[in-house]
């Protein structure tokens, strides 16, 4: 009889009934912990945070105005003596201030265009994927048609009709970028809507809208977030490309792309005018890519035992 006597594990159920609630660990928290273990992603996140602070507050702390022309120091090399730490351009404007202000534009384009494409892409893609059938076919054909428009032609057309304006850049990039997002979201939705938990929700009469909101969107957010971190650098690059071609922001405003474009012209006489904005641009692109990789590993762990 000693066998069963003092084994509390025999009926853990009764024993544990009085115990207070256990806190759960959501998949998001799990992913967060995995992300924190990814050094490259964490360092990149710190660098990006620093970059944001610098870009937002830096110009306020530096005594130079971005459009101030310092005739004493045109095309001066970086150094502390002149007070222009990172040098000046051909017309004597402080390169540090200009790069930081250019960063505002570049990052803003990246974020705003991505957010716009995110909102349109998710609602469009989830609707098409969830309802399927004719709705899906028509909606995705529209995407295909817009996709087929040549991007540069579209941008030039906008410029010609409305003139060069920064808002147009947001519009142009946003109008193209949501297409990819919509396709990705639609693909994910097609997979999710056949899962048993969605079927279970249908079986107990949950409305379509609630199913999309509660069951579909939270489960495709992981993929979307990864995609967003890879879209931001892509958008920044597109803006730089447009600026490089002279279709982007207009003087005196500038962006990293515009600065690189200016710098490229003085590459031989004043290489720093090319190097400084290029370094900022490259570091940003690298960081976003590392963060994206880290997020993908964290949100979609394949070797999860």
């Amino acid at each position, binding site marked *: 009889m000693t066998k069963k006597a003092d084994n509390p594990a025999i009926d853990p159920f009764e024993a544990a009934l009085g115990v207070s609630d256990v806190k759960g660990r959501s998949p998001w928290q799990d992913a967060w912990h995995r992300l924190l273990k990814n050094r490259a992603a964490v360092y990149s996140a710190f660098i990006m945070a620093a970059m944001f602070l610098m870009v937002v507050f830096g110009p306020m702390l530096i005594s130079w105005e971005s459009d101030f022309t310092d005739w004493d120091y045109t095309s001066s090399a970086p150094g502390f003596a002149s007070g222009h730490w990172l040098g000046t351009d051909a017309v004597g404007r402080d390169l540090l201030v200009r790069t930081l202000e250019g960063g505002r534009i570049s990052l803003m384009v990246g974020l705003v265009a991505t957010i716009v494409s995110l909102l349109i892409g998710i609602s469009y893609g989830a609707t098409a994927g969830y309802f399927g059938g004719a709705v899906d076919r028509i909606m995705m054909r529209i995407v295909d048609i817009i996709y087929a428009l040549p991007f540069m032609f579209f941008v030039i057309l906008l410029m010609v009709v409305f003139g060069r304006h920064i808002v147009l850049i947001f519009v142009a990039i946003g109008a193209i970028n949501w297409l990819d997002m919509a396709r990705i979201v639609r693909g994910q939705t097609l997979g999710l809507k056949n899962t048993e938990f969605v079927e279970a929700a249908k*079986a*107990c*009469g949950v409305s379509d809208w609630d199913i999309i909101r509660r069951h579909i969107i939270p489960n495709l957010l992981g993929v979307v977030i990864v995609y967003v971190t890879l879209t931001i650098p892509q958008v920044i690059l597109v803006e730089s490309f447009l600026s490089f071609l002279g279709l982007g922001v207009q003087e005196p405003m500038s962006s990293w792309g515009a600065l690189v474009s200016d710098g490229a012209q003085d590459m031989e006489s004043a290489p720093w005018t090319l190097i400084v904005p290029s370094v900022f641009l490259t570091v940003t692109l690298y960081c976003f890519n590392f963060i994206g990789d880290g997020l993908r590993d964290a949100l979609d762990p394949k070797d999860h035992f």
Partner: protein
Amino acid sequence: MNDRVMRVQDLAVHFKLREGGLMRSKTHTVKAVDGVSFDLDAGETLGIVGESGCGKSTLARALLALVKPCRGRVLWLGEDLNKLDDEALRKKRLDMQIVFQDPLAALNPRMTVRDIIAEPLWTFFPKIARVQVDERVRGVMKMVGLLPNQINRFPHEFSAGQCQRIGIARALVLNPKLVVCDEPVSALDVSIQAQIVNLLKDLQKKLNLSLVFIAHDLSVVKHISDRVMVMYLGRAMELSHRDSLYRQPLHPYTSALIKAVPVPDPKLARAAGETGLTGDMPSPLNPPSGCVFHSRCPFSIKRCQIEVPALRRMESGDWVACHRAEELDLTIGKSG
């Protein structure tokens, strides 16, 4: 003795498959379920058995009006579910719930156990107080053998067996009259399988539930069902009371299925005879003519290739769809 809750009459679900390019597409029709009829009483368990691709899962969904039938009727307490408008149908869903095969896939990984189990409550009673929901959820969790203090946890923190209990809790939270279980134990380990079967059995007795229990495993079905329906390629082959089905099956397919069940006993397993079945199930895209089973049936005659046998009632009160049911004696354990 009991009230009839569900009556299924000549139910058929056909899927159209399109094949080929834009211009010349061919449509195939898959007769996933083709003319199934049965009745279900309150508190009764109907087992539905068949191999993969026999249409049992589609039937489960058609019973709950999750897929539209192309023919036939599902009467729930006398009302045809497919004639109701959306809102009226939604109200009916209060009474009927489903439990799925893959316990983890059936639970939204981003929701807590509380939210998963409470979802039907919020859906039907949006104004209900949070305290009441909590109380009900904890009650149901206790009923299915889950610790109520786990209410804030997420599905991935539970084992497969516990996840299936969560699925059952969600199905029971509204006090339904009918629960359709679509292979609820197929994905579980043996020891956990037994726990879940016992749980369903207990709950059924306690709550006077009607159960439709779908499985491919005849031995599991035997332990829970009052009557058993055997399906093959979308058709009902036999619908019998449990005891007579396992002792004296009427259809050659039933008897082959029974003989194919592996016995966990070395001596019996080695002494077992042939099932008489060869080959695979034919493609549902291109089912055999006449009796769909004739291509694998050891007793098939010419008539079986031409004429589709109707499901007919035998003297014993059991139903069978076989031309030769009277002449065949398929008693189990007789010929070994």
